[in-house]
């Protein structure tokens, strides 16, 4: 009976975890502007009452 070693299981997970981790890191990096950048007003500001 040939038993799978825990090391082979860990290595197998590592093989897929490396690209996954890289992709996750890139996604987090890409999402940073969402939390750091300012934004323009959603709609044009209404004219002041005096100008209506």
């Amino acid at each position, binding site marked *: 009976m040939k038993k*799978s070693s825990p090391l*082979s299981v860990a290595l197998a997970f590592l093989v897929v975890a490396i690209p996954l981790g890289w992709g996750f890191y890139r996604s987090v990096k890409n999402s940073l502007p969402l939390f750091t950048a300012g*934004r323009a007003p959603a709609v044009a500001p209404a004219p002041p009452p005096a100008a209506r």
Partner: protein
Amino acid sequence: MSSFLDRERTVASPGFSRWLVPPAAIAVQMCIGEIYGFSVFNLPLTRAIGITQSLPDRDWKVPQVVLATYSLGLVILGLAAAFLGKWVEREGPRKTMFASSCCFCGGLVVASFGVHLHNLAVVALGYGLLGGIGLGLGYIAPVSTLVKWFPDKPGMATGLAIMGFGSGAMVGAPFGVELMGRFRTPTSVGVGATFLVMAACYFVMMNFGTLIVRVPPPGWQPEGFAPSAQARKLVTTAQVAADEAMRTPQFYLLWGVLCCNVTAGIGILAQASPMCQDMFGVSPLVAGGFVGLLSIFNTLGRFAWSSASDFTGRKAIYVVYFLLGCSLYGLIPVSQRINSVALFVALTCVIISMYGAGFATIPAYLRDLFGTVQVGAIHGRIITAWSVAAVLGPQIVTNLSAYQRAHGVPRAEAYNTTVYIMAGILLAGLICNLLVRPVDPRHHAAEAGAPAAGAAST
């Protein structure tokens, strides 16, 4: 070589750890999930001749590229999964995953040749048709294998595999961008060479999965697992063949469940960037960040929610997806009215996590209702709901918001009606889910573990 790929050669010997199967499944799903990130090639492909800008008369247009690659690939995925499901069950995961790698990576090579010739039909033949067959085979084979290895945790197992598919864009999109950057020259946008390198890398990764995947021996059960101890009303110990499953109302109800869940989610996912910009006036850069965040939640939700379904039961978790999703959709116009981007982002992230979870939980739901023997084939047929939803969702969001704008609704409010419609679609899914009952025993195969007569004839 062929004997190495046969199902008989993949039966696990005693002592094999079933935990080697999830990485095998993720390896395949992560590669084929690249289709979700294909949009990074859209713009470069429209500049294949003009390089710095698209030449109106000679270069392809974005809709043409999307149709020939992304749309065709997803449609063929559904068809391949539906028509080849029983072949997948008969031949086993190793042969199927190898065939998937040949089709998907071969498709990238053919598409590269098409880019070199600047012939969109060749690109469609490669990425759309051949690649689509690879997608269909690679999508169902690992899932069906995992369901058989993890009868005690089917939701977690399918969640892991389908999380791999969801992560395909997170990995594939930046990988494609990096490669195009390296291969770009004054005379080439670098897409053709990128496809070739991706084909080679994906072939290695997918066949890593092919090498380590195994099927459990007949009658295998995890140590200490007693099916009766985990008995639930909707979890059967009987087996239903794929053809017989299609004669049950449960099959069509689950088809409706998946279609509604995907339609509601994919509509937002496909339009996330313009929606965020239109509703809140954020810059394209920030909207891009929002899309990146959604892809993380889409990936993590697949594993988290599907794993939770092992404790709650599948029907209950879909009630959560639909009711919570419906409520959150209803709050999106509120976030727009109070101009809160943070609330909008939080709402959509949870919605998208449940969109991914809908994909991840459905194989376990199928296994609960129909057993494990032909769950891959049944899953393949259910996947057609995805193909329908992939057309419906984005069409509803795009056309309805355009209609609203054309009728004078301010740009920022043009999505409000759409999100209410999405909430309604989720309610329709909820009704389908609530109608699900255990499969009538007359549909069960005569002997547990064997498909019904005539079921394995093709």
